[in-house]
């Protein structure tokens, strides 16, 4: 995997509820640490934009979807377990 690949994320949050705020903070921290300068984050508030959540069948919040690079991955939760998140994103080898 090339180091120059840009990671595209979409994070579905439920306004500023504790879990959602935490997930957003965790994602930002993670990107700063491992994906500096090569990430895009889109935040979707399911309360403000329920139609989008509906269209993409988002049931639980917060939900992080990694759109690129393939494969698409979905992670549910506050993203507090960093190792697990990195593993799911395919970043563990890079970090090592």
């Amino acid at each position, binding site marked *: 995997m090339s180091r120059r690949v840009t990671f595209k994320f979409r994070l579905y949050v439920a306004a500023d509820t504790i879990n959602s705020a935490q997930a957003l903070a965790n994602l930002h921290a993670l990107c700063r640490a491992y994906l500096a300068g090569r990430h895009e984050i889109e935040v979707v508030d*399911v309360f403000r934009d329920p139609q989008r959540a509906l269209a993409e069948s988002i049931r639980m919040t917060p*939900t992080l979807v990694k759109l690129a690079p393939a494969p698409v991955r979905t*992670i*549910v*939760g*506050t993203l507090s377990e960093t190792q697990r*998140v990195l593993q799911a994103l395919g970043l563990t080898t890079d970090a090592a």
Partner: protein
Amino acid sequence: MKSRRCPANTALRKAPTGIAGFDEISGGGLPHGRTTLVMGGPGSGKTVFSLQFLINGVRDYGDPGIFVAFEETSKRIQANAGGFNWQLAQLPRKKLLFVDAQPKPDLVQSGDFDLCGMLATLAVQSTEMKARRIVFDALDIVLALLPDLAARRREIYRLQEWLLAQELTCVISLKGGMDEPSSITQQPYGFMQFMVDCSVILNHSVVLGVSQRNLRVQKYRGSSFDENELPFVIGGSGFDVAVVRLLGRADVEVTNERVTSGINRLDTMLGGGYYRAACVLITGFPGTAKTTLSGAFAQAACRRGERTMFISFDSDGTEVIRNLASVGIRLDRYVKSGVLRMVSARTITGSAEMYLARIKALAQAHRALCLVIDPVSALSKSGNELTAHGVAERLIDWSKADRITLVCTSLLDEIAGETEGDTPLHLSNLADTWIHLNHLVQAGERNRGMSIIKSRGSAHSNQVRELILSDAGVTLADIFTAGGEVLMGTMRWEKESAERVASEVAEVAGKLKRVTLDAQQAELEVRLKAVQTELIAKQVEKTLLARTTASRKAEIVRGRARMRELRGGDAAAPKRK
């Protein structure tokens, strides 16, 4: 709405489920605008219950509904629902929404999460379609993903609040649902049972290899309900909860109309036949012509043009028809014309509840007015002993409510001996008319005796009659009681013919005597005549004699006088001048 019948329940609005029997036990349905918990093990019918609640709501009560599927995909649920006669496809699409909420198998979870996303999207859909009902099927799946008990509790409260805000009548189904109070606290979502307004426990167990389902309303805030465990079946139209007639339900209208038993003399013995909508029980050992007796009833019913159903647990319908034809009961033409429906229940397996549900469904489909179940004791096959009596009770209750004249035969246990014992189902106390058939072994032959043990509300004969089967049909013969002994069969025939001969002899003897007497009388009469004639002759003779004597005397006197004159010797008598 059914709850109107119960004034105590008007305070709480109810959302009728339309599930047969459930609305009765819950006094009108589930609490309107509140949450009901449905718990049960695997295959206990949670999804069917919730789905039926939703579908009936759309179809019969105009309540649009949402089905949130956490376990199975909505496609599969809809396909499964197609197996019931709910006509899911004919429901307006916009009124019933299926939402897939299964966690994706490749879903990675890290840390806490909540259901806000789902609730936000559901709120949109619910408002759009003006939903009144919602089902969360297998909520435990998503709850299990939550990291700790506190998070689960939080999400359940979130859900609860959301539901209240949306004013939706909700059914949440959960796996497990142990009934024991001790296990409630151990369950991660056990407290849900305390939170919700109504909780229903579904149970599926196997007793001696036979599946038995039952349902229990565990709690119902603000409403009275039937607290017992009630058997139910999942049949072609979904749930069917067995309800024993509740107190306060209107009594069934009774009638004095009689229907014939198919045997003239039996009708006479019963004071005119069976009552319409009565339950007639025919008990007897194997081979005592129970089927024949019920066949005669079926034939008579068909002859009146009444739709009849004959359920045989012993043999196929065609066999029954052939066998009955041998005693002059011809049912084949009625089967052809559609009046009679023969059902072989030999192939139906399962619980007694299942039998009842099938019988009910078949009878309703056939619009049967008369029903024969041969034998009803088949309900208490192994594994069903405990439930069979309740089933039989409800069978009778149902047939009475539907004004069906029910004739059941019941096999008596051979081991029970020749006494007129009770039936295995204890049906005899429920039956209106109880006819008992038994064998009498006497002088090397076995004959069928029939007696009426009871017949409610009508005078009935106390006589034991002999049941005679022949090509021409079924007849009842008086039995002979001679010297305190009951004679049947050949002995009765012998006795009858002996009596006949004796009476002939007596008649002949009588005639002979009469002739003799006639002859004697005639003879006497002749003699009397002769004597009378003789008497007259004697009288005449006597008269003649008197006359001749007198004339001779006068002649003699005259002669003397003349002689004197002629002699002239004596002076003429002074007399003569």
